[in-house]
Each structure stands twice: as C-alpha cells, then as structure tokens.
C-alpha cells in the first residue's frame, strides 16, 4: 500500500513539473522513456530468472492450477468487453488492452502509449495510457482493500484472481493473510504467469 501511494505521488509530481513547464525539452520525446522501459523489462527478467524459488514453484505445479490464471484472464477480459460498450470513444480492443494490464499499471500504461502512438496519434495514445495507468492502479487498490470481502463472498481464490499480476509481490502479503498460507505458492505461480502474459496480451490487443 505504501508502495502504490509512492507511485501515485511520483506520477502526481511528474504532472506538476510537466504542467509548470520547468524541465528540459528532450524528456518529452518518447525515446528516453522507451529506454527506461527496456531497463525495467530487463530487471523484471532478471528477477524471474534468478528467483531461488523458481524450481520449487515449477515442481509444485499441477496442471489444474493453470485454471486460476485462466479464470483471471477470461473473467477480466469478458467483463471489460461488456463494459467497453459503455465507452464509445474507445474500441473493444483498446479497452481489452487496458484490462489486460491486470493491475500491472506501470508496464501496461507505458506499453499502450508507446504501441498506440503510430495508429491513434500521440494525443489519443497518451489518453489511453493514462486510463490504463489509473484503471490498473485502482485495480491493485481494490485487490488490496477488498481481499477480506472477496474471500467471504467469492471463495479463497478470489483475492488471487483480483490481484492479477501483482500476486507475486505487492498483494502477496494480503493474500496469504486472508486466503491462507497454503496458497502462497499458488499465488506466486499465478503472479508470475500473469506478469509474463501482460506484455504479450497488451501488445496483442494494441495491434488491432
């Protein structure tokens, strides 16, 4: 929770500085943020590859456990597809690209802005990226705050599915607390798979 507050405040600080206009011009060109994005992806890769628990997790996987990330994906995408009818400004695929951030706000918002600029133009692509950022931050906050409620009415897997790609890091403590310690590996496995699927699904939906 402290982390997501810090993230939101850095974003707000950026907005303030951008609004004031006191910053070097070259920062607004896409190249700089793209190289930082590359750095982020490399770091995410390192953290997956060097994880000591990687082998244990891979060994404890039953095929049945794949149903949980599937539930997250299909549940999210079906509901977002329904709701996209209320958002006439954006196409079905634009909405699905936002939904397939699965609470991984940083990566999804930046990928969407970058990938959509060539087809939608900088203005619309930035707007779509902002919606993706806010929407996925909100999803993480809902997953953090709603976990006890979700367990009560939707069963022990609900906080994991709600957490999307964050269930291996930010929402893991909350999930183990409300869903039970025995689901800790399930939660990490789910988070890894979802983390991994975000760049694929977001770029897939952005290509329409």
């Amino acid at each position, binding site marked *: 929770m402290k982390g997501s507050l*810090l993230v939101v405040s850095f974003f707000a600080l950026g907005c303030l500085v*951008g*609004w004031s206009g006191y910053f070097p011009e070259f920062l607004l060109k896409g190249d700089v943020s793209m190289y930082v994005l590359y750095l982020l992806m*490399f770091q995410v890769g390192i953290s997956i*590859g060097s994880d*000591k628990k990687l082998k244990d997790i891979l060994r404890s996987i039953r095929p049945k456990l794949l149903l949980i990330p599937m539930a997250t994906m299909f549940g999210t995408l079906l509901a977002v597809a329904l709701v996209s009818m209320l958002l006439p400004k954006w196409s079905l695929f634009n909405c699905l690209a936002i939904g397939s951030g699965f609470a991984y706000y940083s990566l999804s918002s930046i990928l969407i802005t970058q990938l959509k600029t060539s087809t939608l133009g900088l203005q619309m692509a930035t*707007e779509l990226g902002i919606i993706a950022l806010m929407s996925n931050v909100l999803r993480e906050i809902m997953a953090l705050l709603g976990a006890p409620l979700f367990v009560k009415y*939707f069963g022990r897997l609900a906080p994991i599915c709600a957490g999307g790609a964050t269930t291996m890091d930010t929402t893991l403590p909350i999930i183990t607390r409300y869903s039970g310690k025995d689901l800790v590996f399930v939660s990490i496995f789910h988070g890894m798979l979802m983390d991994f699927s975000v*760049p694929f699904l977001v770029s897939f939906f952005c290509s329409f």
Partner: protein
Amino acid sequence: MIKENAMFIVIGIMFGGIAFGYFLRRVTLFQKMSNPIFYTILLLLFMLGLSVGANKTIMSNLATLGWQALLIAIAGTLGSIIMAKIVYNRFFREREKS
C-alpha cells in the same frame, strides 16, 4: 515515434533478462531486484506524469478519464472474482473436503 517491432524488442529484452538472471542466480545482488525495479517504475511514472502535465488537453479532461478508468477497473475485478468463484466451486472445493 515507435515501430511495430517494439513489442518484440520488449519481450526479447525480458527473455534476455531471464537468461541473464538464471546464469547469475548465485550472485546475491541479483536476488534483490525488487528495489531497483521499484525505482525504475517510479522514474517511468514520473516521466509519464511529465508528458501528462505538459499536455493541456489531458489535464482538462482528467476527471472524464478517471471515470472511464474506474469503470474498467471495477469490471476487471468483478469479472475475475466471479470466475474465481466458479473455478473454486467446480474444481477445488471437493478436494479440500475429502
């Protein structure tokens, strides 16, 4: 600004990182990646904020964008927990009882 092959670059870099991390998994420095990742995320979001703040059209539409974001967030969360309930009841509950 960006070419279609950007997604392949991004995904390729991630795979490069996985291989790099796997070969150097005994180096303790690389086992504590969550902090550097967090700082990079902060930097990226600061820069995203910069382009938002400098964009007058977006700044004046922030509330409208926020509602759309909230709608999608609620849909995604609800959809996934409903699916979680279905999967839990059908495939996981029985085993735990026995």
